[in-house]
């Protein structure tokens, strides 16, 4: 039997149509059975997470200690007794925390106080821009976090961060941790990766606030900057606040009530 080219194309196109319909049907069925990933049911959500630290409430070393301990213990941050320390939350002097703002005649209480420092979870984070492996990335809710699996330890992020918010593990951190007493719910890091504060992203997913916020007894506020009704927005509206190195344009997400 001899077929014309036209007939051949008709049959061919019909068969392709039938085949794809069958494939599509199959795909729909298997999609219904495929495992799915969802955000946790009780997780906290925000358009833009931010922190407001009421520095007037922190004066003695003990005031800071509770928060630092809560953070470092939970996240298995080692206490290394040399200049290669690893830190997520620590304190520094006014002139180092706010170098743009030094004023010879500042009030004595402002100048002499220590200030909490941590990763600012910047709106325009230079650390994210320079990380070659995307180990450091910014989530849609504003949290700048890390996937330690991908970190190659090049330390570009440390060079990029103008706040010194990152620590490098020069040695295996487990050497400096009491492995019998660590938090078994949270991993440690390994030698050769960079680490920093994550705004307790894993706790927010469970519906809990960051540990330093809990331990601060109301002196550190945490909430959604994009919600005018949130605690942080109210605190910002009612108090005079500053941020670190505003002239750099990184738009930090950590605010200080002075």
């Amino acid at each position, binding site marked *: 039997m001899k077929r014309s080219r036209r007939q051949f194309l008709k049959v061919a196109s019909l068969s392709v149509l039938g085949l794809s319909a069958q494939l599509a049907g199959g795909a729909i069925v298997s999609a219904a*059975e495929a495992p799915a*990933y969802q955000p946790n049911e009780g*997780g906290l959500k925000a358009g833009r997470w931010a922190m407001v630290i009421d520095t007037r409430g922190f004066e003695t070393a003990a005031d800071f200690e509770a928060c630092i301990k809560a953070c470092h213990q939970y996240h298995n941050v080692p206490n290394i007794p040399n200049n290669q320390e690893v830190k997520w939350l620590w304190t520094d002097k006014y002139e180092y925390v706010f170098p743009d703002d030094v004023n010879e005649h500042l009030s004595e209480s402002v100048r002499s106080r220590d200030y909490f420092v941590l990763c600012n979870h910047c709106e325009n984070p230079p650390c994210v821009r320079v990380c070659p492996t995307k180990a450091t990335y910014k989530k849609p809710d504003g949290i700048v976090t890390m996937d330690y699996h991908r970190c190659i330890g090049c330390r570009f992020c440390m060079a990029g961060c103008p706040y010194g918010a990152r620590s490098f593990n020069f040695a295996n951190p487990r050497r400096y941790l009491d492995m019998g007493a660590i938090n078994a719910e*949270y991993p440690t890091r390994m030698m050769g990766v960079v680490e920093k504060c994550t705004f307790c992203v894993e706790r927010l997913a469970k519906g809990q606030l960051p540990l330093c916020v809990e331990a601060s007894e109301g002196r550190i506020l945490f909430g959604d900057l994009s919600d005018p009704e949130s605690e942080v927005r109210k605190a910002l509206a009612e108090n005079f606040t500053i941020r670190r190195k505003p002239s750099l344009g990184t738009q930090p997400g950590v605010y200080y009530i002075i």
Partner: protein
Amino acid sequence: MYNTKYVIAGLVVFLALFTSPFWLNMGKASYQRPELALPADAKECIEPVDYMRAEHMQILDTWRDQALREGKRTYVATDGKVWNVSLQNTCMKCHANKADFCDKCHTTNSVNVYCWDCHVEPKGNQ
């Protein structure tokens, strides 16, 4: 053929080398699937055993990306059961015997994983 001597000799050497793994392994015991310690108090894994055996590494890879990048930390399995997306807090809770579960198979298959350089291995295997 030019240089027949050398060509034949070369071929023989090549064949001997190429097939040497077979000769060297001849008479040795064949591969034995290791006996693994299964969780004492759990009957089912998140997915069927065969699937887990073949795909656990891909699942863990996807779990990492979903949890860290997408913020999706709840896994709805094929059978509809719901799990927390976490190697340390879900997998290792049941598979608490790392030495007789993970290590046995990985060692037999010469696979060196470094999961436990960071993830805390369960205390169940002491």
